[in-house]
């Protein structure tokens, strides 16, 4: 009886649909990752609805309320111009969501494009591209970002494109290695032998099978982009003030007032840490569920 019950249970589990099946596994096997996912979604919602959630305007100056410690009226306190820190943090989330998703999206697209082409075609193109990626990866991300921003100037579009390019080239390695292992599968050889065109094979056979690392790559990239952008803004090379970026709030004029209002140093850093921590946890859980082979890689 026990033997017969097993396939039945399996069949029942399958019939729930892939999304519910995935969510079930996530919450059962990776509670911490699931918690990270929940925080990630909350962060997204905060970013999308920042305009409605923020009690004050992000650049609303009120001289009477300069440097007020956290209270019911100002849960995160106010800064040296009397701007509400909670509202600024919420709008900071919005900037982070926009930059994070756009740059991670661009990076993932580029990684997939480069990775699939070089991994599937191989040969000379692959060899040259790989040497280029080698050289590219020997420059620290932050240094490339600083140099590029110094050339193209600070601003949101520049940062999105630069981060997208930067991470896209580096990430192509991960997709490429996934493609190389998929390429040798029987069904790919079968498709080749019935004369399917290369784009068709790439689209119908390779791409769907490298989807798991792509999803994991995208998720972890969002966290990385948010950290990198805040680092740049901290150095005064990110989105220019008065835009309330989390990194920017920790530097510039805010910095000189931190000794009078230490809460200025807390809120933006906490937001950053919690969001990036949650994304990392969620990304790790996704990786373990989708693609155990990638465990332990960055």
């Amino acid at each position, binding site marked *: 009886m026990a033997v017969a019950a097993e396939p039945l249970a399996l069949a029942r589990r399958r019939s729930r649909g892939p999304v519910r099946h995935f969510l079930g596994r996530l919450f059962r096997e990776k509670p911490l990752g699931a918690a990270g996912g929940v925080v990630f979604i909350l962060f997204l919602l905060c970013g999308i609805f920042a305009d409605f959630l923020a009690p004050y305007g992000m650049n609303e100056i009120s001289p009477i309320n300069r440097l007020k410690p956290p209270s019911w009226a100002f849960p995160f306190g106010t800064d040296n111009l009397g701007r509400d820190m909670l509202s600024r943090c919420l709008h900071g989330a919005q900037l982070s969501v926009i930059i994070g998703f756009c740059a991670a999206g661009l990076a993932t697209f580029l990684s997939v494009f480069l990775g699939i082409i070089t991994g599937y075609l191989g040969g000379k193109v692959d060899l040259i591209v790989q040497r280029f990626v080698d050289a590219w990866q020997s*420059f620290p991300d932050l240094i490339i970002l600083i140099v590029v921003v110094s050339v193209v100037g600070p601003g949101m579009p520049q940062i999105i494109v630069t981060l997208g390019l930067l991470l896209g080239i580096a990430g192509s390695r991960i997709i490429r290695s996934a493609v190389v292992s998929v390429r040798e599968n029987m069904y790919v050889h079968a498709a080749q032998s019935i004369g399917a065109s290369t784009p068709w094979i790439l689209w119908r056979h390779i791409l769907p099978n490298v989807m798991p690392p792509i999803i994991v790559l995208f998720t972890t990239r969002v966290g990385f982009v948010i950290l990198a952008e805040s680092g740049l803004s901290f150095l005064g090379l990110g989105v220019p003030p008065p835009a309330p970026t989390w990194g920017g709030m920790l530097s510039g004029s805010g910095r000189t007032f931190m000794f009078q209002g*230490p809460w200025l140093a807390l809120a933006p850093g906490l937001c950053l840490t919690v969001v990036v921590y949650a994304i990392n946890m969620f990304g*790790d859980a996704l990786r373990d569920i989708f693609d155990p082979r990638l465990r332990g890689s960055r």
Partner: protein
Amino acid sequence: MQAYIVRRLLALVPTLFFASLIVFVTVRLMPGSVIDLMLSQNDISADKMSRDQLIAALGLDKPMWEQYFRWAGGILLHGDFGRSLWQNTPVAELLAARLPVTFQLGLMALIVALTVAIPIGAYSAMRQDTAGDYVGRSFSILMLAVPSFWMGTMVMVFPSIWWGWSPRIMFVPFREHPLHNLAHLIVPAVILGTSLSAVTMRLTRTMMLEVLRQDYIRTAWAKGLSEKLIVTRHALRNALIPVVTLIGIQAPLLIGGAVIMEQIFVIPGMGLLLLDAVYQRDYPIVTGVFLIVGVAVMLINLLVDLTYGLLDPKVRYR
């Protein structure tokens, strides 16, 4: 081993070529408006350069390929990185003065990272799935998420409010006063080191888990050796070989992190040189730092690979 070294050195040539191209092209992407900006920003300093003079000083008046060969040739043949636009000092001199400082900071951070990561990683593996393991692993992911510039800011702000103590921000060269020098660099090194330790710790744990399941460990247990001896003599030694490669992988992170630490703690290293040059739009310095950092990372990776070959004889014959 010799053949291996030669092979690795030869493989470096195309990578170096591409790296120099990346540096060259990136800085040449500069739009014309930046040159106007440079002129308006700096017209008080220097001796009133005209637009044409500035373009000539940047070497932008010649065809692209000629510029590249002049620039690369100057570096390869004479070690000539050009001159700073506004201070007129040779960039090579500035680089030589700043490089050892960043190197020292990086080395100190690396030592901190390894002393934090290896014991915790080994412990986590030995007590797999216990509370201690979970605490260690959560700590490591948390350290990945805490931005080092936030940590640095808090270290500057809170101790000074609570206890009236703040970290030194007066740089003294190591040769002049070693103790003051270390007292200045230790705080940024600890911050940078702990944030780097996360990845090392995870790798140490993974490798230890694998090694602890090997037959020779079971034999060691069967011989009745103490846990301490098994871990230090048998397990850790083998588990740490791959950890060496991680040092090479982390070199870019280390240098990138050093930029931020140098900025917060006012350490006159490569990072601060780069940032000042960026703020002043002194492109010869930017180009010089950019190239040197890339080459340094490549050389560190080469060294790591060679060490790895020494540690693990299997690698040499591949």
